Every structure is written in structure tokens, then in C-alpha cells.
């Protein structure tokens, strides 16, 4: 093998080896600048409730939303739940199928790849944790903190995206439902 060819091969092998290494974010264990803001979005306080009422109301909301409860640890106020839901977007699928068709027409059906639609969104796995704890200073006051994340899968089984949910509107919708659920629980409905 000529020397230059050998070098090119070595370079390719090296590139292949290093491509898989994602870099570790140095600030992963430091509070981010938005940590306080996120806490405000994720925390609500409920007054004049008992521990049983707030926990029952919380798990009832999770059930209303179709979540399966994976973990409950009353001593630490932890409730974790998950669900798999549809994530497909018909506009995205239609767009990618149109691209596949265009590709086939342009190549006169010779060697066209008609599978780019498989890279579109399919289902998503959502996980959330609710931590329900009594306020340290006032009786009958409970603080609920919610954190959510999800993995969106593509139709070909690869990860389309994974993220921590930080959209305030999503949290607000959940807490609106929880407030209603707390009311129903207190009224014994």
C-alpha cells in the first residue's frame, strides 16, 4: 500500500473512532442562570390541604392524563410517571414523502432513495416527576414541584430528539388541572 494511501486510511479510522465521542458539558452539575426561573415555572403551593388529599389529587391528574405511575415514595414525596404518546406530525410526513417521490422522479426511478419519511417523528416517551412536600414553616401548606422530559423517536427507531421540557405553558396546563383536582379531592368528588 503506498504511504499516502496508508495515511488516508489511518485518518479515516481515527475520524471514525473519534466521531462517537460526544463531549461532556462542563456545567452539567452547576446551577444554570435559568435555574431560578425554571423553579418558579415548576413549583406551585397549595394551602389548606392534607398530605393524603394533595397526593391523591396529584396521582389522579396523572391518571387523567393517561400516565402510568412508575414510582411512589411517600416519605420523600416523590411520584414518577411516564407515558408513550403519538408524536407524528402529518405535515412533516407528507413533506418527506413528497421529497422521496421527487427524488425518484428526478433519478427516473434509478437508485432513488424513498425512505427519508422514515426519519420523521413517530412516538414520544414522556417522563415526569412530581415532588410533593409539606412547607417547612407552615402547616397545611404543600409545595409541588414538577419536572418533565421526553424522548421523541423517529419512524426508523432512532432518537429524533431528547429534551427537558422547559415550556412554561406545559407546566401551567398541568398545574391548572392539579388545582381542579385538589378542589375535587377536598369536596370528596
Amino acid at each position: 500500500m503506498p504511504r499516502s494511501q496508508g495515511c488516508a486510511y489511518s485518518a479515516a479510522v481515527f475520524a471514525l473512532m473519534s466521531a462517537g465521542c460526544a463531549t461532556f458539558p462542563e456545567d452539567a452539575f452547576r446551577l444554570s442562570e435559568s435555574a431560578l426561573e425554571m423553579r418558579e415555572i415548576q413549583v406551585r403551593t397549595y394551602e389548606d390541604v392534607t398530605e393524603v388529599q394533595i397526593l391523591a389529587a396529584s396521582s389522579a391528574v396523572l391518571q387523567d392524563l393517561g400516565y402510568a405511575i412508575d414510582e411512589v415514595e411517600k416519605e420523600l414525596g416523590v411520584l414518577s410517571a411516564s407515558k408513550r404518546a403519538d408524536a407524528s406530525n402529518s405535515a412533516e410526513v407528507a413533506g418527506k414523502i413528497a421529497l422521496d417521490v421527487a427524488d425518484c422522479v428526478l433519478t427516473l426511478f434509478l437508485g432513488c432513495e424513498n425512505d427519508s419519511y422514515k426519519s420523521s417523528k413517530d412516538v414520544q416517551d414522556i417522563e415526569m416527576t412530581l415532588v410533593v412536600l409539606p412547607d417547612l414553616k407552615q402547616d397545611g401548606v404543600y409545595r409541588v414541584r414538577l419536572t418533565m422530559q421526553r424522548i421523541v423517536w423517529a419512524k426508523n427507531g432512532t432518537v429524533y430528539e431528547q429534551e427537558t421540557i422547559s415550556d412554561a405553558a406545559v407546566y401551567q396546563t398541568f398545574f391548572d388541572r392539579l388545582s381542579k383536582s385538589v378542589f375535587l379531592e377536598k369536596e370528596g368528588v
Partner: protein
Amino acid sequence: MRVLLVLTLFVLTGCAASTAAITAGGSQVELRQMQTREYETMDRRGVLRSIVATLQDLGFVIDKADFDLATISATKLQKYEIRITVTVRERDSGRLAVRANARFNEDPIEDPKSYQDFFATLDKAMFLTLHKVD
């Protein structure tokens, strides 16, 4: 040419699904030291609650929490995935030892700086909880 052979061998060994990974790990003493911190308190509940609060502040979702075994596992999903397990044990000296160990995607996190950051964040939460400030 020799370099080429070595590189090829290296890549090929990487491809085999070795069972060595099952029990692979770093130096036991060093790892424990960097992953453990002791706190002068016997308030197990307070410490565990502080750990949960810290993990939530850092963007983790709690996968498992067990008060009796004092073990909490959590996952953070961004463009990457970090899984962490935090345990609390009583020491003879009337202190509680908190140990955290984490993985970044497929690799263990063995950089002392990451654990220092984690414990620095936990210290703040612990101070607030143990002094009954929310």
C-alpha cells in the same frame, strides 16, 4: 504500515461486545473519595429531600427514590443523557455520607470537578433545608 495494523486491531477490539465492561471500573479508593462527601447531621430525611431538590434544580427527573434504602436515581435528558445514583449512609461518627455516581451517555463520569460541582450545589440546598428555609 505498523501504525495501520495497530489502528485496525484497536478498532476491531472495540467492535467486539466484550464482557469486561460488566465489571470494569476505576480505582475503588480514588473513586469513592471523589464521589463521597460527609455532612455533620443525622437528619436523613432532610438530606434525602435536599438531594431530590438539587437534582430537580439541575434538570433531572427522578427515576427511583427509596427512603429506607436512602437511594435516589435520576436522569437528565438534553442533547446527551446523564444518569446519576445518590446514596446516603450513616457513619459511626454521627455523620451522614452522601455518595453520588454518574454516567454520561455510555461512559462513567470520573472527573473530580463534576462531583465537586454537584456537592457544591447540594451544599446550598442542604443549608436551606436544614435551616428550614424553602
